[in-house]
C-alpha cells in the first residue's frame, strides 16, 4: 500500500471535457484516413498493387499531419481545458443503456495519437522498401492502415465500449499481420496463438465493461471515472482486476505473455510497430486511463505491481537466452512493458512515468526492431545471432542507430531511457524498497542481455554463413530508422525538460511527486553503476570471447529461458490438455448420452411400431373380430361406469 493513499483525491486526474470546436472537430479524420486507406487497399485488391503502398503511407502521413495540427492547437489551451469530445452518432440506445459513439482527445490520447501516427508513418515508409520484394506488399499496407485506424480508435474512444471496438480491431490487425506469411506453418500457428491468448484478455475487458454498467449505470469515461471514488470497494477491485486481465492479454504480461515471442513470426516492421511501440502498450493505456478506478482499489493496484514485476524479470531472463535477434528483442519488450505496468500500478506517482517510458520505449524499441530488420535484410533473413558478428564493419548506419537504441534502453545519460526508466525506479523506491529492488535487478539484467545482443550482432568476429553478403540497407529504410534513433537519443531530455511531460499529463492521470527516503542522486549513480557493470560483464562474455555457432547446452536457467520459462508448457499442461480432455469427454457425452437418448427413443418407438404393425394381417375376419371385441369392451366399460 502506498504511503500516499491518504492524499489520493487531490492527485487524481480530471475527466470533464468540452465539446470540440475548430481544429478539434477534425479528430474523426485521424481514424477515417487510415480506415479509408485500408478499405481502398483491401477492397480494390490487386488493381492497387502498383501504387497501393503509397496510399498506405499517405493516409498514415495525413493522419500524422492532423495529429500535429491538433497538438499545436492543444498547446495553446490552458492545462485544465485541453480535453475535447466529439459526438459522432448514437450507437446503442436500449432503455437506460445509452452508448454514444463519441471520440475524446485529451493530453493522454494526444501523446498516444502522436506516437501511433508518427512512429506508424516512419514504419510505413520503412516497409515500402523492406517489403518491396514481397508480392503481397499491397495487402501488407492494407493491414497496417487497418491497424493504425483501430489503434487510434482505441485511444480516442470516449467510452469503454468504443474502446473495446478499437481493442478488438488491433487484435484483428495483429492476427492478420503475424499471419501475413500464412503459408509458413509457424506463422499461421503464431497468429492463431496470439488471437486465442488475446481473447482470454478480451474476456477481462468485456467483464469489466459489464461490471461498470452494473456499478455505475454507464460505460462512458466521465460516467465511470467521475463516480469511481463513490463505488464500493469490492466492485472497484473486481473491475480493476478485470481491466488488469485485459491489459495482461494485450500487453503480453504474465500469465498471458506466451503469444508475444511467437508473434515475431510476422514481418519485422509489424514487430516494431505493433509488438513493440504501440499495440502492446494498450494495456498500459487502459490502466492509466482508468486511473480513478485503480486509485480507489489498492488491492487491484497491488496486483498490477506484482504482475508488472513478474513480467519485468521474466522478460529480461528470456531475453538473455534467446539466439533469435527478434525474440531477444521481444523478451525485452515484455520486460519493458512490465516496467510500465509496474509504474502504472504505483498510482499517481507512477502513471506519468509509465506513459513517459511508453513513449521513449516506443522510439528506442522501434529503432532496434527496425535495425534488426535491416540486419535481416542484409543477411538473407537470418535471425540467428550466432551467425552474425562484426556487422559494424559493413552496416555502419544500422550499427550507429542501433547503438542509440541500445544506450537508450540501458539508461545511459543523455539517452531517452535514462530519464524515463530512472523515474520509474525512483517511483518504485518511493513506493517500497522491495519493488524498487525488482526494478533495479530488471535494469541490470536488461543491460546484460542488450549488451549480449549488440555484441553478438555487431561486435566480435564475423560468423556469417558462406552465402551471406551483408550490406547496408537502402536509404528508404535507414532514414526512418535514423529519425527514430535521434528521437531515442533526445526525446527523454526534451520530454522531461521543465517537467513538461508531467505538467502535460497531470490533468488527466494525476501526479504526486515521489518522495524518497534518501538522496535521488545516490539512486541515479547506483543504477548507472549497476547497469555499467552488467553491460561490461555482457561485453566480456560475448564480445571478447568467441561465440560458438551452435548454442551450448547451458545451465538449467538458460534452458528454461530458451523455452520461454516453460510458459507454453504450463499453458499446455494446465489449459490445453485438460481442455482437450474436456472437449473429448463432451464429444463422447454428445455421441453416447445425448445422441443415445434421442436415437434410442426413436429406435424404441420404431421397434414397437414394427411389432404393432403385425396386427394388420390382411384378413378381414380378424379385423371384424377385433371390432367386435372392441365394441364389447366399450359396452362393458359403459355398463361398469353406469354402475
Amino acid at each position: 500500500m502506498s504511503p500516499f493513499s491518504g492524499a489520493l483525491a487531490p492527485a487524481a486526474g480530471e475527466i470533464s471535457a468540452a465539446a470540440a470546436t475548430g481544429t478539434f472537430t477534425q479528430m474523426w479524420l485521424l481514424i477515417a484516413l487510415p480506415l479509408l486507406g485500408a478499405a481502398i487497399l483491401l477492397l480494390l485488391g490487386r488493381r492497387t498493387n502498383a501504387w497501393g503502398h503509397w496510399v498506405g503511407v499517405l493516409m498514415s502521413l495525413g493522419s500524422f499531419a492532423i495529429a500535429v495540427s491538433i497538438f499545436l492547437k492543444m498547446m495553446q489551451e490552458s492545462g485544465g481545458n485541453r480535453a475535447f469530445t466529439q459526438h459522432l452518432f448514437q450507437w446503442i440506445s436500449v432503455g437506460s443503456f445509452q452508448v454514444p459513439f463519441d471520440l475524446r482527445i485529451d493530453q493522454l490520447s494526444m501523446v498516444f495519437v502522436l506516437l501511433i501516427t508518427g512512429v506508424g508513418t516512419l514504419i510505413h515508409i520503412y516497409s515500402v522498401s523492406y517489403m518491396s520484394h514481397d508480392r503481397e506488399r499491397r495487402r501488407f499496407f492494407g493491414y497496417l492502415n487497418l491497424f493504425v485506424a483501430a489503434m487510434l480508435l482505441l485511444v480516442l474512444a470516449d467510452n469503454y465500449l468504443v474502446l473495446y471496438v478499437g481493442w478488438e480491431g488491433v487484435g484483428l490487425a495483429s492476427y492478420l499481420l503475424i499471419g501475413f506469411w500464412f503459408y509458413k506453418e509457424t506463422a499461421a500457428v503464431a497468429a492463431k496463438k496470439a488471437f486465442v491468448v488475446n481473447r482470454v484478455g478480451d474476456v477481462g475487458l468485456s467483464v469489466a465493461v459489464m461490471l461498470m454498467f452494473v456499478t455505475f449505470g454507464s460505460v462512458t469515461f466521465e460516467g465511470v471515472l467521475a463516480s469511481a471514488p463513490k463505488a464500493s470497494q469490492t466492485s472497484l477491485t473486481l473491475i480493476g482486476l478485470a481491466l488488469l486481465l485485459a491489459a495482461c492479454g494485450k500487453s503480453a504480461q504474465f500469465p498471458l505473455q506466451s503469444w508475444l515471442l511467437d508473434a515475431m513470426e510476422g514481418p519485422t516492421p509489424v514487430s516494431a510497430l505493433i509488438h513493440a511501440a504501440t499495440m502492446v502498450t494498450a494495456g498500459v493505456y487502459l490502466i492509466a486511463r482508468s486511473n480513478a478506478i485503480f486509485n480507489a482499489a489498492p488491492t487491484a493496484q497491488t496486483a498490477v505491481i506484482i504482475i508488472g514485476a513478474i513480467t519485468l524479470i521474466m522478460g529480461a531472463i528470456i531475453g538473455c537466452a534467446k539466439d533469435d535477434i527478434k525474440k531477444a528483442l521481444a523478451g525485452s519488450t515484455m520486460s519493458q512493458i512490465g516496467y510500465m505496468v509496474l509504474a502504472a500500478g504505483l498510482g499517481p506517482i507512477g502513471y506519468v512515468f509509465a506513459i513517459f517510458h511508453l513513449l521513449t520505449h516506443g522510439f528506442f524499441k522501434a529503432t532496434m526492431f527496425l535495425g534488426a530488420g535491416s540486419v535481416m535484410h542484409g543477411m538473407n533473413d537470418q535471425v540467428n545471432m550466432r551467425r552474425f558478428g562484426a556487422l559494424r564493419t559493413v552496416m555502419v548506419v544500422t550499427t550507429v542507430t542501433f547503438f542509440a537504441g541500445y544506450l537508450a534502453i540501458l539508461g545511459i545519460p543523455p539517452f531517452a531511457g535514462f530519464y524515463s526508466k530512472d523515474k520509474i525506479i525512483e517511483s518504485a523506491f518511493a513506493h517500497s524498497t522491495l519493488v524498487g529492488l525488482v526494478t533495479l535487478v530488471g535494469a541490470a539484467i536488461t543491460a546484460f542481455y542488450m549488451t549480449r545482443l549488440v555484441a553478438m550482432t555487431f561486435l566480435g568476429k564475423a560468423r556469417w554463413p558462406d552465402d551471406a553478403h551483408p550490406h547496408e540497407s537502402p536509404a528508404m529504410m535507414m532514414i526512418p530508422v535514423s529519425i527514430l534513433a535521434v528521437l531515442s537519443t533526445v526525446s527523454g531530455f526534451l520530454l522531461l525538460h521543465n517537467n513538461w511531460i508531467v505538467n502535460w499529463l497531470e490533468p488527466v492521470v494525476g501526479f504526486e511527486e515521489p518522495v524518497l527516503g534518501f538522496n535521488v542522486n545516490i539512486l541515479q549513480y547506483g543504477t548507472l553503476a549497476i547497469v555499467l557493470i552488467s553491460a561490461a560483464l555482457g561485453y566480456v562474455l560475448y564480445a571478447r570471447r568467441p561465440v560458438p555457432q551452435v548454442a551450448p547446452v547451458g545451465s538449467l536457467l538458460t534452458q528454461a529461458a530458451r523455452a520461454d520459462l516453460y510458459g507454453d508448457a504450463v499453458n499446455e499442461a494446465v489449459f490445453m490438455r485438460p481442455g482437450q480432455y474436456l472437449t473429448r469427454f463432451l464429444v463422447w457425452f454428445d455421441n453416447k448420452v445425448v445422441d443415445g437418448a434421442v436415437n434410442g427413443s426413436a429406435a424404441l418407438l420404431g421397434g414397437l411400431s414394427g411389432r404393432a404393425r403385425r396386427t394388420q394381417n390382411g384378413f378381414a375376419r380378424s379385423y371384424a373380430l377385433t371390432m367386435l371385441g372392441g365394441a364389447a369392451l366399450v359396452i362393458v366399460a359403459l355398463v361398469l361406469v353406469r354402475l
Partner: protein
Amino acid sequence: MNPANYLYLSAILFSLGAVGVLVRRNAIVMFMCVELMLNACNLAFVSFSRINGNLDGQVIAFFVMVVAAAEVVVGLAIIMTIFRTRRSASVDEANLLKY
C-alpha cells in the same frame, strides 16, 4: 306379449349375424350376416320405440334401412369386382392389403 321378448330375439339375431361374419369365408354370406345384424338392430330400435311410446326408434330404423341399401350397392359392386379378378369370393384370399 311382453315387448322384452322382441329385444331377446333382436339380441339372438345380432349374435347369429356376428358369428356368421366371423366364421364364414364367403363374402356374399358375410354380407348377408351383416344385413342380419343391421336388421337385428332395426328390430331393437322398433321395440324400444314401442316400449318408450315415442317414434324416434322407428325413424332411426328407416335411416338404417337407407344406409343398408346404400351399403349393399357399394359392397356388392366390390364383391363383384373381386370375384371377376380372382375367380373367388373368399375374403381370406383377398389379403394383399396388409403390413
